[in-house]
């Protein structure tokens, strides 16, 4: 069709996604972006709570009730996990940016460790929250 498409046809192209066997680092990569996008919009939840707190006892009671309802708690739990997932996953990126951890072994291991830390941190925060 266009001149661009004709040119693209004669260029060497790198193999696309479906060529590769799915693996952990691949999943962690796209999950980093997805959790980031989810957290972007979920930031409103935190601000909504602060707005409730600033607005007075009546509106706060409403916001608090929403957060403490079952759907509210499930959403909060999911958001908190994604926050830790994105945070620990982000540490991997900082390590790579510093020039370390590029071997397949290190990359795989960092993926597993960040996943484990995210799960542990989420459970720890909710257990401490329920306990106090």
């Amino acid at each position, binding site marked *: 069709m266009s001149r661009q498409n004709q040119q693209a046809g004669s260029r060497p192209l790198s193999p696309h996604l479906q060529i590769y066997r799915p693996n952990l680092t691949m999943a962690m990569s796209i999950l980093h972006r997805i959790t980031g*996008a989810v957290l972007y919009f979920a930031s*409103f939840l935190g*601000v909504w709570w*602060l707005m409730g*707190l600033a607005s007075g006892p009546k509106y706060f*009671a409403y916001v608090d009730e929403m957060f403490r309802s079952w759907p509210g708690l499930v959403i909060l739990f999911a958001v*908190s996990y994604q926050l830790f997932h994105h*945070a620990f996953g982000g540490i991997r990126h900082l390590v790579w940016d510093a020039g370390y951890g590029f071997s397949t072994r290190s990359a795989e291991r960092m993926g597993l460790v960040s996943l484990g830390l995210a799960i542990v941190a989420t459970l720890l925060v909710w257990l401490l929250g329920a306990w*106090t």
Partner: protein
Amino acid sequence: MNSDCNTKEPKRFQTPLKRARGPGSAGDGTGHFMTQRATAAVSFVLLVFLAVVFVLLAGADYERARRVVGEPLVATGLVFTAAAFTWHMKLGMQVIIEDYVHHELLKYALLTANILFCAAIFFLALISVGRVTFGF
């Protein structure tokens, strides 16, 4: 094709001027890259702070929540967190938009909306925490 691969100079698809100028299609990027990493590192530390505040406020009623959030150290930390998070959000969503939206007009509309959304989140947090801590 094969003869191209055997020449000393590897085949390039950029003009020398484009190569000399460096940046890709966005026109710049180093500042964005560095700021994204800096806000990421700061955000990680602030996430620890946020987790502590979350645990402190888990069972709190209105009065207690206002007292805790109104504490200067907590209030400052929350505004700091809002600043770091929303700045990082702006940079991250910008990359997503630039990656997936190729219609020029829509792209710039979304890039603008991105800035406005992040600014709104920050200002809402700032005003709310301010109202709680200054008590009006």
